[in-house]
């Protein structure tokens, strides 16, 4: 086969492709309905969806099961306070605060000294000086 023959064949092929592109199956209304029904059935429900507020339950999960696992409460609470990431951050801060309070690492004690002008450990720093006198006065009454 010569190059010219091959080129002619491929030109013909383009004619076949053009004809095939022009003849395309259109989706039937029934197929579109089936696909839209699937979309509705699998669409995620937003946490603050009105149906949830009105007490309607999500398909596939029974209220008793939700109560038993406790997930219903957390699923409603978490989005309200910013999601699991925010809760993790809060928990981390709380643990770090407790640790600093108990361990009193030297850099923190130094910082406290600079800020308060006292060379005392953190448990002796009086952060609310007026509170003692208030409590004393209150106890005295």
């Amino acid at each position, binding site marked *: 086969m010569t190059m010219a023959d091959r080129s002619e064949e491929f030109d013909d092929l383009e004619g076949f492709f053009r004809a*095939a592109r022009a003849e395309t*199956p*259109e989706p039937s209304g029934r197929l579109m309905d089936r696909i839209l029904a699937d979309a*509705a059935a699998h*669409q*995620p429900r937003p946490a603050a969806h009105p149906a949830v507020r009105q007490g309607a339950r999500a398909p596939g999960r029974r209220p008793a099961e939700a109560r038993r696992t406790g997930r219903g409460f957390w699923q409603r609470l978490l989005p309200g306070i910013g999601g699991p990431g925010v809760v993790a951050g809060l928990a981390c801060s709380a643990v770090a605060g407790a640790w600093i309070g108990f361990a009193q690492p030297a850099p923190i004690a130094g910082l406290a000294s600079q800020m308060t002008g006292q060379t005392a450990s953190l448990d002796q720093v009086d952060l609310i000086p007026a509170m003692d006198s208030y409590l004393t006065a209150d106890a005295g009454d």
Partner: protein
Amino acid sequence: MPYDALTEAPDEALLVLYANGDGAAARVLTGRLTPRVLRYAARLLSDPAEAEDVAQEAMLRLWKIAPDWRQGEAQVTTWLYRVVTNLCTDRLRKRRSVGLDATPEVEDDRPGVVARMQEDDRAKALQAALGRLPERQREAVALRHLEGLSNPEIADVMEISVEAVESLTARGKRALAADLAGRREELGYDDG
């Protein structure tokens, strides 16, 4: 978001809206993507009923993956073409395993074809010839010459290199040309 604005939105944005509970986004995506998915499935399977099933299954997988869709990683259409390719491959494999023909013969030998020489007959002849191609060549040729994808896009869909795509389409076209060569006259290519 107003429906008119949705029709202008890219596929990926619509998928995110759908995942956030926007029902109108699902309607726009269905109207936009289903014809392409159905057309490609029909090219690979040569069976309209099976192609409809594949189109529905592919769209169902799209709805299911929507909440976990990683933005910017792949185009929605590329992902869908890949899903359709895999679903069709499974179906063709099952056909073979139960002893059926790899592709049902498309009716392309009706009397009167020679006289009418219509585009319709050329389309049917091509579909029949496509059905006789090896699967990977059929996928590459259909994506390139019927769906209009670029070679890098086809490489993404088929998860092969661009060079492999070029090789598959070249071999596929050669085989198609040889297959259709005997029918050039009756389909109106040697009129003079």
